[in-house]
Structure formats: C-alpha cells, structure tokens
C-alpha cells in the first residue's frame, strides 16, 4: 500500500527523532550514577530503537513500492532489513 508525500516527510522526521533519542538515552545511561535511572534509560533506548525499526520499515516499503515520492529515498534512508535488525 502506498503512502502519501506528507507521511513520507513525517516518517523521515520520526526516524531522525527516535534515532537521536535512542542514541541520547544510551549515552545518558553511561553517564548517570543512579542504577535505577540507568535502568530506565536503557529501557527507553530499546523502545526508541524499536520505533526506528518500525518507521524505517515503512520508509523502505515506500521506496520499494514505487510511490511517487520514493525517488532518491534509497540514498536518503539506506536501511536494509539486516541493518535495521542490527541497529
């Protein structure tokens, strides 16, 4: 099923937001001293990584599904399924 141009923009933004949040949560987890806070941060990191996978899947499907906005998407979001799983 094709997606809209608007959705593609939203997905691209979401990908960037959640990738940053995952990275930031991981970094913060290495910085905090309280183990309880660290545990929560690691939990958040895993959640955002899952979000990145969800979003990237839509983008990849769009780029393969021949939507009009898909031209060039492979260069912008070059996520293979394997890369996504190993994120």
């Amino acid at each position: 099923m094709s997606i809209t141009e608007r959705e593609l923009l939203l997905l691209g933004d979401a990908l960037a937001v959640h990738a940053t949040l995952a990275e930031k949560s991981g970094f913060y987890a290495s910085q905090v001293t309280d183990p309880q806070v660290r545990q929560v941060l690691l939990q958040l990191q895993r959640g955002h990584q899952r979000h990145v996978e969800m979003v990237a899947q839509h983008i990849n499907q769009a780029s393969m599904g021949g939507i009009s906005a898909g031209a060039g998407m492979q260069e912008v979001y070059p996520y293979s399924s394997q890369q996504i799983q190993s994120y």
Partner: protein
Amino acid sequence: MNGTARLSDQAIATDVLNSEKYAASVAGQSALESASPFVKRDFESIGRDCAQNVDVVFRLMSSKGWYQVSPVSQQSASQAQQEASSTLNGITGTVAPSMTMSVGQAGGGYQPGRFAPQAGASYSPGGGFGGYSTAGRGSSPGATGGGSRRRSTV
C-alpha cells in the same frame, strides 16, 4: 575539574522527560495527519509508547524528589468550580447537580470523579450535555506536566 561539564542525574532525567513529551506530541500529531492505516497505526503506537515513557520518567523523578507537584489550593478549586458552573449555566440554562457541591468539598488532592454526577441525582448524560461526561476532570494521578498542574521545581 578537567574542563568538561557533567550533567547531574536530575538534569539528565529532566531532559529525557522533555524529550519524551516532545516525541509523544509529534507522534500524536503525525498520526492525525496520516492517511494510510498502517502508518497511522504505528504513529499511534509510538505515541502511546512515548506517553508511557513520560509516565515512567515522571514517576522516577517524583520518587526521588526531583519533580514535585503542588496539590490544588482550595481557592483555585473554588474559583474553577464557579467558572465551570457559570459555563455550564450558559450552555444548559441550568446548573447540573454535579456542580452544586459545597465549596468545602473542594481541594484536598486527587478526588476521582469529583465533578461526576452524584448517585441518585437527576442528571441525565444524554440531556443537557449531549452525552458529554465531566467525570474525572478534577485531576489525573501522576500528572506529567499537562493540564493546569503546577510544578514547583525543576
């Protein structure tokens, strides 16, 4: 000091809380603007996850005294009640039974269904309100910065 500033655990938790609020808000907006069912569903799911994260971080901060909330004062509650009564009066022409409670009942922290219709009252959900329920509007446990809940710190 080696010249690099280090964030405290509290500062980190605050930043994470705000980031999660932002992510929840963006995901919700994205869901509203999505036409494709699968994309919409995933944005909604992400939004729920982030809202849950906000709750987790808020409770963690609250447990450590990093995020304190003030219970509503009796004065604010009374004023809100009067304004709500006035608004309802303007809409329905009558004051709903739920809004006729005494001022002495107001305040004192969270009261589930404080504005809800009282048992046995003649209030009819399908009548004056057109089905709109005010139940549970008094407060929400574990408020995460939304609504009119005030923060005294952070």
